[in-house]
């Protein structure tokens, strides 16, 4: 299969709109996956308190701390994009148009990255500290 045929296979309408749709779904499903694990691990404080330290030890490992930085991006992006969708659907229906959707989707990505960078900096510093760098 050629590269073009493969990109055609996963492209619906392409562009910013599809990117924002895919990012919203992927970040949402990723957050849910973590949320379910997190509910179970936190429940051990009541059900199996001696296991809680083991669960936290996993989160303190470097791969999970790096994953945590991406988790925070997912939560920020999903929130900003969700707010964009909710505000357009509930309050700005009149302003809904391909142009406003295109521009606001780009702004959403910019705002999410700007909000994420300080958090990523603090959390990234903790990772480097753990590695002794």
């Amino acid at each position, binding site marked *: 299969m050629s590269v073009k045929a493969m990109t055609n296979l996963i492209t619906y309408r392409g562009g910013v709109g599809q990117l924002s749709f895919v990012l919203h779904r992927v970040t949402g499903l990723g957050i849910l996956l973590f949320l379910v694990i997190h*509910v179970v691990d936190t429940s051990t404080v009541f059900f199996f308190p001696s296991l*809680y330290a083991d669960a936290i030890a996993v989160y303190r490992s470097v791969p999970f701390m790096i994953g945590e930085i991406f988790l*925070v991006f997912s*939560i920020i992006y999903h*929130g900003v994009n969700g*707010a964009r969708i*909710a505000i357009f659907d509930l309050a700005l229906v009149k302003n809904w148009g391909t142009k406003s959707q295109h521009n606001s989707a780009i702004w959403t990505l910019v705002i999410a990255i700007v909000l994420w960078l300080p*958090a990523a900096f603090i*959390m990234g510093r903790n990772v480097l500290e753990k590695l002794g760098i």
Partner: protein
Amino acid sequence: MMAWKWMRYSGLLLIPLAWGHVLIQDVLVGVDRIDLNYVSMRWAYLGWRIYDLFLLVFALAHGINGLRQVALDFVSKKKIRLVNQAAYVYWLVLVLFGIAALVGGVRKP
């Protein structure tokens, strides 16, 4: 339409709830300082337990409804009922599990 409205209103509520939780626990406190003592100290305040209860119920309901909607994009018409029931049971089991821990609190080993 109910589910459509639900995602928008619960989503707006989850922005302060989830962002606040992540900002405090992941960014400001950090996973290296979280242990059983930290959880029992936090849950000593009823307010934080209620905050966590809201987060538990709303985030799981929002997330599992999202998963249900993604799943419905991929299954045939005959499976819709099954997906709906599975999503409901999944939500109920996890919420009851979480509530048991929230009410029971930290048990020191």
